């Protein structure tokens, strides 16, 4: 068994770095910030040894800009940050959405707003991860709740970014980022290369829907010339104000995600077969919810758990079913209630949806959840 597949104690942030390396990351740019630093510090040592590039930039705006440039140059590229840095990155995240440039942005959430609590957990950025950049846009946001999931989700994030030419955000929290637990990493998978166009350079259009919902992206320097802009653009990438060019582009931008919801959305469930109460959780509160679930089951209470590994696009179909499946839905979060709003929207009043919240830098306690089961 290779050394890195033996059971060992590993930290969430370390598993993200391992996942990025397994996914074939070729470029990382970042700016130091707690509680995401271990990701940079590990990649700064490991990535150059694999022939990749590590850059410490002057700030987070430059970091995401460098990542976008590197991706256009053909590298699988990522950056990691926390709340304050994530705010700075928003404008360029929108640029990557509009120009359809794959990249991975890791946000290890700490308590906010503003500088908040650099070393304490929070899930305050859930809506920011969805709507932080301006303008109507799709996005993919994934969320791990354990160290092994940090590894697997990072691997998946790189693949989804490439497959759908979109920024993928890994929304972690300080608990999961700093949590150390026993893991056994699976053997590495083969990295799928970016698909190449089948046409000669003069016939290549990077935004042409005739080439499919996700037209292939040619790396710079391979002899294919095209234009990249954040302005509304035509199939060649040049700015346009023609509605008949803008509308189909906008339609495709959303449709490439909407039509592939099943591929993108990952939801795990546990003990839902006979559940009367469903706990819907993501990130560190999954751990609180599972603990509560086990205690409740020991007392014969029919409690189940829905774990959201994909936050955006929101797993509407599965959550909507809860409106007919259980009597009550509980949503634990380390914020004042963000994802609970989505659950309420989708359940649409058919069943009570109750948030259980904790702010101030502590995990939701399993007992907070158990109290709600009594109510």
């Amino acid at each position, binding site marked *: 068994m290779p050394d890195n597949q033996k*059971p*060992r*104690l590993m930290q969430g942030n370390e598993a993200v770095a391992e996942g990025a390396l397994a996914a074939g990351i070729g470029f990382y740019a970042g700016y130091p910030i*707690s509680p995401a630093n271990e990701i940079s510090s590990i990649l700064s040592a490991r990535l150059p040894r694999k022939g990749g590039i590590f850059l410490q930039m002057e700030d987070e705006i430059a970091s995401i800009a460098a990542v976008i440039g590197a991706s256009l140059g053909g590298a699988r590229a990522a950056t990691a940050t926390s709340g304050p840095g994530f705010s700075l990155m928003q404008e360029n995240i929108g640029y990557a959405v509009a120009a359809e440039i794959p990249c991975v942005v890791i946000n290890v959430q700490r308590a906010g707003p503003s500088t908040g609590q*650099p*070393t*304490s957990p929070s899930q305050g950025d859930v809506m920011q991860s969805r709507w932080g950049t301006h303008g109507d846009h799709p996005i993919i946001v994934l969320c791990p709740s354990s160290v092994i999931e940090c590894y697997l989700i990072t691997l998946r994030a790189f693949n989804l970014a490439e497959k759908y030419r979109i920024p993928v955000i890994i929304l972690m929290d300080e*608990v999961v980022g*700093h*949590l*150390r*637990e*026993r893991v056994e990493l699976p053997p590495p998978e083969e990295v799928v290369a970016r698909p190449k166009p089948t046409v000669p350079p003069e016939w290549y259009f990077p935004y042409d829907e005739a080439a499919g919902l996700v037209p292939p992206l040619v790396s710079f320097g391979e002899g294919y010339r095209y234009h990249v802009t954040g302005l509304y653009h035509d199939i060649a990438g040049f700015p346009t104000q023609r509605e008949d060019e803008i509308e189909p582009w906008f339609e495709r931008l959303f449709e490439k995600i909407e039509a592939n919801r099943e591929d993108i959305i990952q939801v795990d469930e546990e003990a839902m077969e006979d559940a009367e109460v469903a706990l819907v959780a993501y990130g560190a509160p999954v*751990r*609180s919810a*599972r*603990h509560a679930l*086990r*205690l409740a089951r*020991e007392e014969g209470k029919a409690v189940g758990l829905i774990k959201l590994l994909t936050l955006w696009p929101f797993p509407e179909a599965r959550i909507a079913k809860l409106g007919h499946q259980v009597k009550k839905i509980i949503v634990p979060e380390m914020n004042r209630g963000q994802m609970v709003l989505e659950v309420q929207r989708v359940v649409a009043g058919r069943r009570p949806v109750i948030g259980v919240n904790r702010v101030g830098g502590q*995990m939701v*306690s*399993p007992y907070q959840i158990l109290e709600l089961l009594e109510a």
Partner: protein
Amino acid sequence: MASRFEVCLAGQGGQGLILAGLILAEAAVLDGKNATMTQSYGAEQRGGASHSEVIISDGDIDYPRVLKTDLLVALSQEAFDNFHHEVKKEGIILTDSHLVEKKSGDGLIALPIVETAKGAAGSGAASNMVALGLIAGLTKIVSCKALHKAIDARSPRGTQRSNRWAFKAGFDLAKTISPKAKRKA
């Protein structure tokens, strides 16, 4: 539900209690058990309240934070004041007899941890290793063999020998505790 053994190592930043938690959790994994380790600290490198929490279990560990402490190591008055009330009735509270002046409670064991580190390793900086030796001596949650391996792997070059001495001094110190005080051992 699988049994959980919950350890809280609390004190001041710079005392090495986050590293001690890491070593304890790594040793548990070497023993073939499950373990989680979390940490809580301020933005400063030294000083300020800091603690780590280690959960050890033969089964899955969902909630990775302490709910009811089996073993508290408190190396500052603030740490003792903050955490002693979370200790189980049959749990152990291990403190330094000088650093923590106001102390009382069931399961309290006050020992000269820092002094022992100075005597064994020539520096109070090895107090965390003395604490690990005491944990090994007072409980059976991890094997000495696994702790030796984990300490060696985590000791910076040049500190391995002094860390081993400090660990052994802590382990020997535990033998001076009456069996009754060891409780869950």
